[in-house]
Every structure is written in structure tokens, then in C-alpha cells.
């Protein structure tokens, strides 16, 4: 077993610049040193994913409410492509409606994050999400039944 510090490749698509900033700052402060790529909307993300040469991300964070292509549409599109079957998809939204949570899980999301209203809490949430995703990844757990709502 060989370890290196770049353990996770994370993508996030969020049309809100501030939220993207909060997210990357939180990642930075966590000193997880994961590779984080930011996308301004769903369309950008999907264009990037369409490239066959990309390195597979480990987790993909999707805001639900985005112009051009909503997070829900992205989710459906990504889940329809077998290339991404091992990628964990985390919904990252201000909505906490049960309907959104259940529908995205049904459509193949693994994680649902209600955007925290506190930066410390955001760090905690990201840490927890990355951790549990790592667990699923490293311990051979069933991805089919991987759900985490926070």
C-alpha cells in the first residue's frame, strides 16, 4: 500500500461564486489538500466530464439550482454514463425539502448536503462527507446503498 497526500479528486458545480469560495476556503482550512476543481454551472461541468481523458473524480458536488443545466439534470446525465458509476455524487443545496432529498437519492445521488449557514459547520460537513466517502471507497461497501444526508 502506497500513500501520497493527494488522496481525493473533488469537483464542485455551483453557480454562486460566494458558495464556491466558501467551499474552497473550507477545503483549504481543512488542510486536506485534495484536488478541487470548480465549475460555474452544470453545463461547464458536463462539458468537462464529456472529455474521455480526465482523471476520474472521487466526489462530485452539485448545486441543485443552476442556470442552463440544473443539478438534477446533471445528476441524471452522469448516472446514465457507466464511466462514472464509481463516482460519488453529493448534492449541495440550500433546499432541505424531503422531496428534493428523496428524488435525488432515487436518481442516484449518494450524499445530500443542506448548505450550512455557518462556516465552521461547513468545514465539519465537508470533512464528514469526505470521510464517509473514503470509508465506502476503502472498505468495499455497497455503493448501491450508499446514502448520506446531512
Amino acid at each position: 500500500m502506497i500513500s501520497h497526500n493527494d488522496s481525493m479528486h473533488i469537483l464542485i458545480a455551483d453557480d454562486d461564486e460566494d458558495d464556491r469560495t466558501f467551499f474552497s476556503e473550507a477545503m483549504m482550512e481543512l488542510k486536506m489538500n485534495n484536488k478541487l476543481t470548480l465549475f460555474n454551472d452544470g453545463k461547464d461541468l458536463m462539458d468537462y466530464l464529456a472529455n474521455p481523458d480526465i482523471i476520474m473524480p472521487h466526489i462530485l458536488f452539485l448545486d441543485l439550482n443552476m442556470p442552463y443545466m440544473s443539478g438534477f439534470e446533471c445528476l441524471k446525465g452522469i448516472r446514465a454514463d457507466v464511466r462514472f458509476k464509481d463516482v460519488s455524487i453529493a448534492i449541495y443545496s440550500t433546499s432541505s425539502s424531503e422531496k428534493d432529498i428523496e428524488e435525488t437519492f432515487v436518481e442516484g445521488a449518494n450524499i445530500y448536503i443542506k448548505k450550512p449557514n455557518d462556516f465552521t459547520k461547513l468545514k465539519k460537513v465537508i470533512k464528514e462527507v469526505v470521510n464517509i466517502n473514503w470509508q465506502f471507497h476503502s472498505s468495499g461497501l455497497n455503493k448501491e446503498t450508499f446514502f448520506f444526508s446531512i
Partner: protein
Amino acid sequence: MRLYIKYDGIVACRVILQEQLERLNIKHKLLELGEIEISNTVSDVDFAELQASLNRYAIYIVNNEKSQLIQRIKDTIVEMIYENDKLPAVTISQYLSDKLNLSYGYITNVFTENTYSSIENFIIIQKIERAKKLILEDQLTLTEVSYKLNYSSVAYLSSQFKKVTGLTPSAFKRIVDKRRNLSN
């Protein structure tokens, strides 16, 4: 002059690993997340050479013994949870140190250092994983599941299930059923 560079650490790391392994003629397969599968036997000299050359790039081969121990710990826990019809009533620490013949303190230290999780957390995740399977099999009631997995009550199982998944067992089952209907 100041240069600004942009680099992809993962790609860089994979390139370095590949170069060094090929240089020593080691047949290998790069797995995700810092794992390499080596298919031929590597001499001690070659292994030391590989270790030394990788260290220059701040890449370290994790101690074999420890990784083996972690695997044994994991195996023991998984076996405990899956093989028994009902979880043993003894405490986990007792069970693990008996099975592995090591002190529990040492076991937890090694485990926590090398995984992103504590043993307790790992056990909880594994137990909930088993609970998920049992719930989806639809043969047992939640009470029976909680008994089987040695939970003191259904409430406790439900609350731990909620902590790990963010869902209640029934919502979990509903979602999986819906998802299966969707793919059919």
C-alpha cells in the same frame, strides 16, 4: 522573474510511480487512492531501491506489517458482523484483542493512524451496512434486525442508522425500492 505554475498532483504522482516501477521491471497495476498491485515477486534489493527512489519524491511505502494488521482488523470486524447469526455479547475491544492477540490500544492506534476512521466508527459503518442488507432483504422486522445486530433497542438502531445515512430505515428502503423500480 516569477513563474506561475499549475500542476495536477495526482497525475504527477502517477507518472513518477510508473517511471520508477518500470525502471525496476516490476509488473504492476496502479489502483485508485495510493494502491499498487504488484504481480511478480520483487527482490529485497529492488524493493529497497524502489523505496529509496520514491522517498525522494516524498512518496512512502507504508509499512507492510501495519497494512496487513489493518486488513486483519477489518477482516476480523467484518467476519464478526457477517458470519455470526447474532453478534457476540462481549465488547468489541475484548473481541478484537482476543482474536488478534494484541492490546486494544495498539490496535486502535494503528487503525486510526492509517485509515481516516476510528475502529468504533468502522464497526458502526459495517453494522449499518449489514442492517441495510437485512432491511432490503425484507425478511426480518426492524426489531429482529436490531436484535441480530446486538442493538439494545429499535430506537437505538434507528438513531444510529440515521446518524450514518441521514435517513430513517423506512425512508432508506423506500428510496432503494424506487431506485430499483426506476432502473427496471
